[in-house]
């Protein structure tokens, strides 16, 4: 039961953080390219890499179920998004901007995987 409470609390903040950042970036940079979602997914991947490395240490709080469910399943899971990513890729492709659509897909996947690896490596250095 406490697992559900952890997910609920984490996701409440994660969704609002995503809405705030995507709105902020759209107002500053414009909405011709989904920079907001790209930033959200890459930053979320960086942080999940750190938590993933910390969780390997049994003494870490992230090795416990509830902190992990709050921070990772709840907050980061809700903060990052595939649905908006897919919809934005489709919108770019339908708009005839094939290069931008392909670039968005390629950079999202490559940068997110790079960010996880970076977060994981950095957390390992400071352990």
């Amino acid at each position, binding site marked *: 039961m406490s697992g559900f409470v952890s997910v*609920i609390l984490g996701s409440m903040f994660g969704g*609002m953080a995503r809405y705030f950042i995507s709105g902020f970036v759209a107002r500053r940079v414009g909405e011709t390219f989904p920079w907001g979602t790209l930033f959200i997914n890459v930053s*979320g991947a960086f942080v999940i890499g750190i938590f993933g490395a910390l969780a390997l240490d049994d003494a870490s709080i992230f090795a416990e179920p509830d902190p992990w469910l709050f921070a990772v399943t709840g907050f980061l*899971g809700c903060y990052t998004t595939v649905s*908006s990513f*897919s919809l934005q890729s*489709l919108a770019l492709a339908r708009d005839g901007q094939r290069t931008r659509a392909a670039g968005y897909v390629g950079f999202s*996947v490559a940068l997110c995987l790079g*960010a996880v690896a970076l977060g994981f490596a950095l957390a390992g250095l400071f352990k």
Partner: protein
Amino acid sequence: MTGSAKSSNWNAAILYACVAAGGVIGSVARYLASLLIPTIAGFPLPTLFVNVTGSFIIGFYSTITGPDGRVFASTRQRQFVMTGICGGYTTFSAFSLESFRLLHGGMTATALLNISVSVVTWLVAVWLGHVLASRLNRLKGS
């Protein structure tokens, strides 16, 4: 504070509440999927399932409630369903961590399979949802 600034703040607060409530519903559904769907031979099936179904739903809903759509939805309803439920239900961070763990653990083939199958099926799912809703929008009648 002027009256219109007050009402615009109130409107923004309601939109945040719609996103938070939808995000909680989507995230609990994702958590349930992770408890019910097994990981097969290291392949992270639960994350693939939520990301594919979530992409289909957002593609369908955004088109059926879009400018030429046959279903009317207010901005609040759209934020609740798309930014809230679909956004909370799908996750790019878990996909990234699971792919990295497979690569890091030496399961390179499974990692590459996960990455390629995921990206292709997400995009096909959002496109299918969009196409299905477009067909429904063009049907005659109410």
